[in-house]
């Protein structure tokens, strides 16, 4: 009889089990890759009919987006056009307007606030704000939407919009406080915590000796912050901006609640009144029309919007990646 194999202590696997473990982990990796890849491909395949019927005009303007979507819902094509007829510029313009203005506003505010937190704020303020910023970063967007809808919107509607202003655009659109300004302000507050957190983290990581060297040369405190600390933290600020843009771009629920629920392009030629006109970005349009996906033309159009969002998000993460490469060169850790 062959003797039993040498006793192995528990947990000492053979080379064969090791190979098996590596293979199964690799297989899992392939499965996840295939799943996500399939998801990306499916969205584009489902989106194709809408793009192929409209060509590049898909991104162009013209016509009323609401009417086009309604035509698809009711399966009654607009006279002279195919059922897929869809020109998305109104929605793209709304996305650009809310995203760009919220990100620019948040960039200025978050940079100043991060400098305040790291340089000037007294220790107790800092210690209170740390958990508060984390809480705000984790607040679900529907709660921001709720606050905006129940607090900010009535205030703007009753106190900031004059009757004359309301009457001036009455023939084109009703203005009622759910508008570009409300949506952008709440969006800014939503992306602020993350931008403040990343910028403040980068400012804290700037070596003390750099600042002290600048101060020793007689440069005043503000200029030291401006020229040395912020300069060193620039890659982190860029990365924070890119990621905040991705979040603003993908925000659907809050913007659907606060944007006024109508595909309308605020006309900048209206001056200040444009701030009070409704807006509906791409993601909010998906959210608002997700009920009607059994309807084939509408579904293709919605998937086309989703594809545009995915491509933009992909390009943004490419931008974030490029910013990160610069981090590594500087050796600054956020």
């Amino acid at each position: 009889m062959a003797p039993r194999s040498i006793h192995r202590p528990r947990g000492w696997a053979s080379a064969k089990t090791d190979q098996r473990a590596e293979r199964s982990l690799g297989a899992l990796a392939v499965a996840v890759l295939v799943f996500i890849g399939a998801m990306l491909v499916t969205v584009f395949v489902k989106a194709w009919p809408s793009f192929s019927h409209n060509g590049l005009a898909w991104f162009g303007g013209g016509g009323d987006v609401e009417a086009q979507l309604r035509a698809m819902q009711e399966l009654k094509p607009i006279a002279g056009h195919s059922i897929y007829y869809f020109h998305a510029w109104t929605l793209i313009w709304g996305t650009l307007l809310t995203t760009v203005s919220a990100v620019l506003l948040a960039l200025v505010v978050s940079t100043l606030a991060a400098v305040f937190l790291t340089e000037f704020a007294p220790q107790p303020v800092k210690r209170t704000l740390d958990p508060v910023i984390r809480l705000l970063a984790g607040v679900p967007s529907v709660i921001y939407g709720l606050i905006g809808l129940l607090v900010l919107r009535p205030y703007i509607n009753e106190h900031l919009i004059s009757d004359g202003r309301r009457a001036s655009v009455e023939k084109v659109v009703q203005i009622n406080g759910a508008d570009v300004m409300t949506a952008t302000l709440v969006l800014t507050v939503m992306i602020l915590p993350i931008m403040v957190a990343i910028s403040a983290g980068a400012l804290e990581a700037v070596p003390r000796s750099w600042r002290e060297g600048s101060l020793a040369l007689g440069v005043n405190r503000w200029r030291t912050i401006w020229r040395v600390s912020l300069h060193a933290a620039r890659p982190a600020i860029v990365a924070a901006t890119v990621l905040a843009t991705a979040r603003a771009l993908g925000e659907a629920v809050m913007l659907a609640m606060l944007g006024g629920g109508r595909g309308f392009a605020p006309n900048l030629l209206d001056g200040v009144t444009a701030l009070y006109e409704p807006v509906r970005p791409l993601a909010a349009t998906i959210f608002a029309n997700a009920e009607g996906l059994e309807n084939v033309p509408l579904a293709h159009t919605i998937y086309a919007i989703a594809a545009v969002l995915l491509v933009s998000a992909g390009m943004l993460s490419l931008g974030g990646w490029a910013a990160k490469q610069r981090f590594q060169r500087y050796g600054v850790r956020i």
Partner: protein
Amino acid sequence: MAGAALLPSSAPGAMAPPPGTPIARAPRERTSSWPLLDRVGFAACWVVGIGLCLIALGIVLFMFFKGIAYLRPSLLVEHPAASAKQSQSGGFLDPIEGTLIVAILGIAIAAPTGIAIGAWLAEYRHPSWLARALESVIEIMAGAPSVVLALFGLLIFDQSFLGFLSTTSAGGAVFGRSFFGAGAIMAVLALPLVVGTTREALTRLPSHLREASHALGRTRATTIRRVLLPTIRTDMATGAALGIGRIIGDTAIITIMLGTFLTFEPVGHTPLIGTLRGTGSTLTSYVYSNSPAGEGGAPQKAYAAAFLLLMIVLALNATVTWLSGRGAAPGERSSAFSLLRFEWFPLPWTR
């Protein structure tokens, strides 16, 4: 020589001022000598900083007061009911259970998968092109809007071979909306966070841990399972908690994948499976449908549910802080800043 060695140690004592002498400080820099532009910037900094503090505290305190004003214990144990009157529309027992179901389902799928993927990325990465492709795809997932994920979820779960996970109508059409589907899509949402924390923790571990284990004759798989993963236990828990936080806060996936129901709509009569195959609501979709944007129009209930949701987020944050405090080396303080990073840089240092 001995005297020279002794000298430096005695010198500081001789030079030190007697106790009680006031220490001279540099005079405080006055801003009045600064150029105008610098003074403006300095003032803007204080104004914005204090303004942000006020807004942040304002939002938190507002939600707390509204929540305390409207939250009643009875709301937590009553089923919601569709009613125009706020006094008759019930509580939110079903949404609370729905949130729990979705969070548990999502993290039960995302945590093991994410930890395995993170371990593979950190320890094996064998065909390196596969590793790089996986990393970039996961990064895209981290940035993809959740509405898009929800749309994709509808697309997969109304395939006929997945009909057993949701409702199938008499004509054979699959409805595609169920807790199973929502949980699976939520797992995709949470996956990048778990992968990121696991991978980062593994790459941070000193290599002598692995070397010592290999020197004892343990294989790589055993090293991962018995040495590395137990060492990064707290980091994995942090990743899971961050993932749960993201799952709980998502509204778009819930309203699209479950619809805007208030109560559970189970399918069939099997107790648990029926509920999971059916649809229902979670706290986020409850807040949405009771806000003026939804049909409910019961703002007080919405405030109360939002407050409860905020409490859950707060508890999760506290858990994450506690976990990362336990995992961190002494002296390495983990602030909000370092924790928030994972939500945005799931895979920060691509090799």
